[in-house]
Structures are given as C-alpha cells and as structure tokens.
C-alpha cells in the first residue's frame, strides 16, 4: 500500500525529465514576450533564471519544481480553449471528464458482469457465442469509429440524441449559475442543474452524456466480459462450488454467491485499471463529441506545443492511476478476507 509514494516520486521524475527534454528555451519562450530585445530581454531572462533556478544542477531544479507542484503552482497553459494556470484549467475541464468516466464505469459494470456470468453459465450455447462475437467486434473497433458510427445512427439518422457538446446552448442562456460554458459550483453541468432544481437542463445534459459514455464503455466492456467469463468458468470447476452443490444449495445461490463472488476478485482489479485507462480513451472520444473535458484540453495543448498543459495533464493522469490502485487495494482487502495489510 505504501508503494504509492515511490510510484509518485518516479512519476514526477519522469514528468520533470520530459519537461527538460523540451529544453529551457521552451520554458523561457512561454514567459518571454518576443517583442522584448536587448537589455530588457536579458534582464527578463535573468529574472526567469532566478525564478526557475535554471542556473542550478538539474536534480536541484527537480526539488524546486517538486516544491512548486506541492504548493499548487503547476505552471501555465496557453491554448485556444483556455489560457491561465494549469490548476485552474484542470478544475474547469476535469469535472466533465470525471462524470463521463463515472457514467462509462457504471455502464461497464452493470452490463459486463451479468453478461460474463451468463456466458459462463450458458457456455458454448448460441447466446454465449453471439455475445462473444459481438464483444470481440467492439473490442477490435477503434474508439473514434464506434463514436462516429453511433453519431450517424442516433444523431443523424434517428435524431434522438444530440451530436456534440454538454448541453443545448439555447437552454442555458441567461442562467445565473452558468457563464462561458462553465457551470457553478461543481463545474459538472448535470449535478449543478440538479442542485439548482433545473430538471430540463439536467435532462438535456444527461442526453449529451449518453453517447460519449456508451462509446467509451463498449471497448472496455468487451474485455471485461471475456475476463469475467474466463474466471467464472474457472471458479465453477472449483471444489467449493461442487461442495455447495453437494450441500443441496439451490443452483441460483451456487452461481450468484459461491461462484460469482470468487470469480469477481480478479475482475475487480482489472476493472479499476481499465477505468483508469478510460482516461486515455477520453482524449479521443472528447474530440469526436466536442466534449469540453480534460482530453480536449490536452489535445489542444499538444497541438499548440503547450508544455504547461502537457505536463499538468500527464501528472494528473499519473495521480489518478496511483489513487485508483490505492483505492483498489483497500477495496480488495475489504472483499477478500485473506488479504490483510
């Protein structure tokens, strides 16, 4: 469990190294106006050198940088989407991504666990084969393709779901808690709308969440169904499952209590990492659906050579992974009595 501290240190070292591969000139370029020349330019450079300790050895700079990070100064970002402190950008864009990921995670869990159990119990039957083929198809399809196909079917052809964005702009005109595409206080439109009792906006925000989160979940779902099926088949051959049958416990209880719970153990671990990995998929999906989340901000940061944004985003993803694994460890100890820390 305490492994997460060295992991964090390793993570920051890598991020810092990346920052330095970019070179100090890049850093300077961000703070230096190109119009400055001569003595004034030299003066500003000297000031920045002192500020970022650029005259010190690299490992000393690392600690200065680390202190800055801990103090909450994650640098600045300058993209067409947003210009300002990185922490501020994260506060604006991350909540959107968070709710998208949570929705996707809920869909994944609710669909893949029962389907995995169903396929294992009805092994080699038509329904098992159909689910396996379908899930493999989705697994093989790239995310953006699924997204585009869904848009064509549901938004263009049937016109039942919105194409892009987080909300229908005409609904939020003149709302006291909504400015410049940012809602207050949580920055999550769905929750803010519910907090303010505006159910029309909330429903609209919910409709906007459906397609991105379904797209996000389909690929991962396939992996999880297969994993659940595999572990379930393995557990159903175990002695304790047969013993439960020998005790005369009804078959339903044998499967749902004895077999399923044991089969879930490895699935829970993988589920956590898959969900953390969804954040990688978010980068693509948010672009497809023009959904203003962390992925869209990161894409635009990369396209605009925005070091602050890239570093901040990388560090954030790393932090999320580390926290997820910490959370998983705790969860695992909760469900498996054999594990004690």
């Amino acid at each position, binding site marked *: 469990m305490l492994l997460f501290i060295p992991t964090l240190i390793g993570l920051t070292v890598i991020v810092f190294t990346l920052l330095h591969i970019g070179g100090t000139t890049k850093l300077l370029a961000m703070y230096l106006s190109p119009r400055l020349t001569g003595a004034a330019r030299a003066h500003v450079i000297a000031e920045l050198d002192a500020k970022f300790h650029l005259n010190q050895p690299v490992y000393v700079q690392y600690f200065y940088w680390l202190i800055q990070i801990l103090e909450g100064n994650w640098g600045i970002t300058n993209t067409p989407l947003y210009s300002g402190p990185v922490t501020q950008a994260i506060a604006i864009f991350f909540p959107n991504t968070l709710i998208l990921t949570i929705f996707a995670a809920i869909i994944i869990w609710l669909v893949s666990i029962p389907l995995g159990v169903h396929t294992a119990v009805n092994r080699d039957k038509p329904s098992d084969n159909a689910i396996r083929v379908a899930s493999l198809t989705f697994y093989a399809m790239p995310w953006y393709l699924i997204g585009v196909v869904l848009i064509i079917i549901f938004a263009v052809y049937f016109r039942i779901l919105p194409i892009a964005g987080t909300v229908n702009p005409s609904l939020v005109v003149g709302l006291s808690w909504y400015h410049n595409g940012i809602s207050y206080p949580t920055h999550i439109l769905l929750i803010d709308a519910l907090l303010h009792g505006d159910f029309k906006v909330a429903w609209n925000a919910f409709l906007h969440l459906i397609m991105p989160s379904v797209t996000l979940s389909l690929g991962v779902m396939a992996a999880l169904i297969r994993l659940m099926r595999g572990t379930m088949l393995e557990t159903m051959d175990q002695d*304790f499952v*047969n013993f*439960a049958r020998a005790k005369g416990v009804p078959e339903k209880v044998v499967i749902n209590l004895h077999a399923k719970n044991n089969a879930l153990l490895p699935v829970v671990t993988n589920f956590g990492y898959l969900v953390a990995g969804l954040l990688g998929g978010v980068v693509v999906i948010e672009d497809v659906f023009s959904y203003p989340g962390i992925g869209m901000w990161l894409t635009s940061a990369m396209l605009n050579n925005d070091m602050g944004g890239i570093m901040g985003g990388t560090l954030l993803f790393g932090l999320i992974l580390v926290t997820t694994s910490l959370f998983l460890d705790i969860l695992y100890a909760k469900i498996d009595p054999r594990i004690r820390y």
Partner: protein
Amino acid sequence: MMENRKHDSSPIVKIENLHLHYYTRRGIYKALNGVNLEIRRGEVLGVAGESGCGKSTLGRAIMGIIPRNAAIVEGKILVDGVDYLKPLREYFKKAKKFKPTKNQDLLKKVNEEMSKIRGQKISMVFQEPMTTLNPLLTVGYQISEVLFYHNPGLLASRRLARARATKEDTKNIVKILKEEGEGERLRQYLKNRNIMGLEDQIISIWRRKELHDLKKEQMILELCCEPISSMARGYLEQIEKTNSLPKFSKLPIVGRIVKRELLKEAFKKSAEFLGLLGIPDPDKVVYMYPHELSGGQRQRIVITTAMINNPNLVILDEPTSALDVTIQAQILELVKELKEKINSTYMFISHDLSVLSEVSDRIAIMYAGQVVEVGPKSAIFNSPKHPYTQMLMEAIPTIEAHELKGIKGEVPDMRNPPKGCMFYPRCPYAMPICKEKRPPLFKVGEDHYVACYLYGGEKK
C-alpha cells in the same frame, strides 16, 4: 425414523451396470464400465483401487455432481429407489452425437431435482479440505447453509422455543435435569409446554464436559424470554409448521429479518455441533474464515457440514488422503465416533487399504472402472480371490521386512480399454477366455463376489 432404517432391508443405493464416459477433445474416456454395487443401510462400504480407476467418479455420480461432458451411457443408480440420472441416460440413447451443451441443460434439471436430497438424505465429503471451503465465507455460514435450506423448521422451532419459554420453564428444566438427567420426563415437559425446540440446545449444553455444573445451569437458565418482532414471528411459526422456506423475494423487509433470524440460529446450532466434535472454542470458530484454520480443522468443518442434518448416506471421498498421518488418525477416529452417534450409512473411498481396514464393514475393489471384487472385510483381507486384489495386498507396506511387490504393467488406456477382462494384460493367470469376454461377478463365498473366470462356476 431410526427404527424404520433398521427394518428396511432394501439397499440405500443400488448401482446397476453403470457405464459413464467422459467426452474430451482427446477422445472418449471410459471411466466407468459396468459397475454393479449396492450400499446397504447402516453399513460402512469401503471402496479401494488405484488412482484413476473411477472411485471418485462413482462417488460423484451417486451425488449427481458430474461435469457436463460426462455421458451416462448405460445403467442406473437408484438412490432410495429413485433413478435421478435417467434424463441423461435417455438423452445419450436418443442423441446421434453427444453434445455437452445439451447434456448440461439436463444436468441442470438433475441438479435441481437432486438438490432436495443432497445435504439432507445424502451428502459428501471431498478429498481436499484446502479447496472444499469457500474462501470468502465464514465457516459458520457454510455449515449453516445446509440447515437453512433443508431444515428451516428446526431452526424456527429452536428460535421460537426460546421466545416461548418463561423463566419458570427453565428453572423447572434445570430441576428435572438434576433429578433425572435427560430422560423421558424432560421430553414430556418440553412437549407439554410446546418448547420442543429447546431439547437439543439443552442437551448440547448439559453434555459439555469442560464446563462446571453451575455454569451449565446458568446457560440453560438463559435459554428463555428472548423476544422476536411480531412480524417475523408469524413467518417463523409458518416455517416451523411446514419446514419449508417462504419466497423471500415476495416479502422484502420481513424476509430479511426472518432470514437473519434463521441464519443466526443456524450459526448457534453449528457451534453446538462443532462443540460435540471436540473443536475448541466453537463459538469463535464459526465466525472464522477457512484460511484461518488448519487442514485438519477444515476437514472437520467439512465433515460437520456433511453430517449436521443426519443424512442417510455419507460419501467420504478420500477424506484423509490430503492430511498428514496424525491428523489422518484423528479424522478416522472422528468418523468412527460419528458412526456410533449418528446411525447412517457410509461409503468410504480410499486408495489406502489400511485405512479401509480400520473403518469398513464391506470392501469393494475397483479396477479400470469396474468392481472386480466385493465382500466382507475379513474375506477380502484373509482370502482375496481376484488376482488384482491379491497383488494389491502384497503391495501394502508393513513394518516387518518383506519384499514389496508392485503390480507389473500399467492401468489400461481408458480411451481404448481391453475388450475382455480389464486386468487381462497384467494378469499372471490369464486364460484365452479372458481376452474375449468380460467376466461377470461370481459368488465365491458368503456375500463375497469376484469378477474373474478363475472362479467361474456358480454365477451370481
């Protein structure tokens, strides 16, 4: 009930010409090839044989716990006269090509049908105590399950009795116990007061040896005036009367309360039973997880689970093979003790003849999916008839120095077994007829049968 069992002379299990084949990718393994065997009420039948000869498959087939690729080709198993595997056999006869998925559907039905008698009339102890218990559930719960699904009436009546009994009652009970012990008068008193559910609770406390009498008295005095919510009470009374569980899904909140009451009671009963088996601190053990117990303890838990409902037949599938010798002896002692206490029938499967000589009344020797010799223990040990049994006896290691003789050759490939006698390729007395025809069981002595043409005169 007990009197009934003694008078009923029909065998509890009768296996007639059972053929069971496993369909695998590498071919059809003919695991059982015409097993004829009966298990008589009240006896301990030992089943011996090399590994891979089908002993465990036979035990599991009686329980109906077979994998989906197991085909019942021919023959039947009658458990108390009922042929549970009939649908599987009929499917195999009808089907042009054996399909595990179809077999699985039928197996599901068989499971459903048999789950009513498993744990209640027949139960089984598995070989490997390390893997037989579910690692995520407390051992108490795993024992309680058997009581909860098969004997809810007992649990309800135990619980209700504690609610009905008054302080006066428990005082009288202690008085009766002191005067006459646990006799007819106690039963009569409990019956008159409608608190029969207290009987086994009282007795289990009274029989404990490690407690002082005063402590026991105090514990019995506490068995009263435990209130239950009036909602749950009605359902408990209904369960007591019908001894079957109501549909809990139809009564969401009350159902939970009732279920919890029953499980709590089952935990209590489990702890009492464990105490009877001499497990220290049973009240704590029931709340432990399997990984907190040693192998011997776990096997005791498994045996408890199999025995707690007083089943008519217990199949012990190599219960001692995975344990070290001292624990093995303790478990054997336990089985013998239970045999005294609970009048039921046992099928004891083991590859270890010395273990079987300890516990069994009759012994069946299996070879390559067939019973080759069956008879009383003394006959099998003193005058083994089948060449395989004879060679098996010579292969038992003893303390005195004597030359150990292995049996030359190997068990035949079960995908392609010999046409005639299975033992023919390894038999020193093989005759031409052995190669052509499988020998039936010949009678060679009192209740002693052998499948070998050396004794082929009088047919069974």
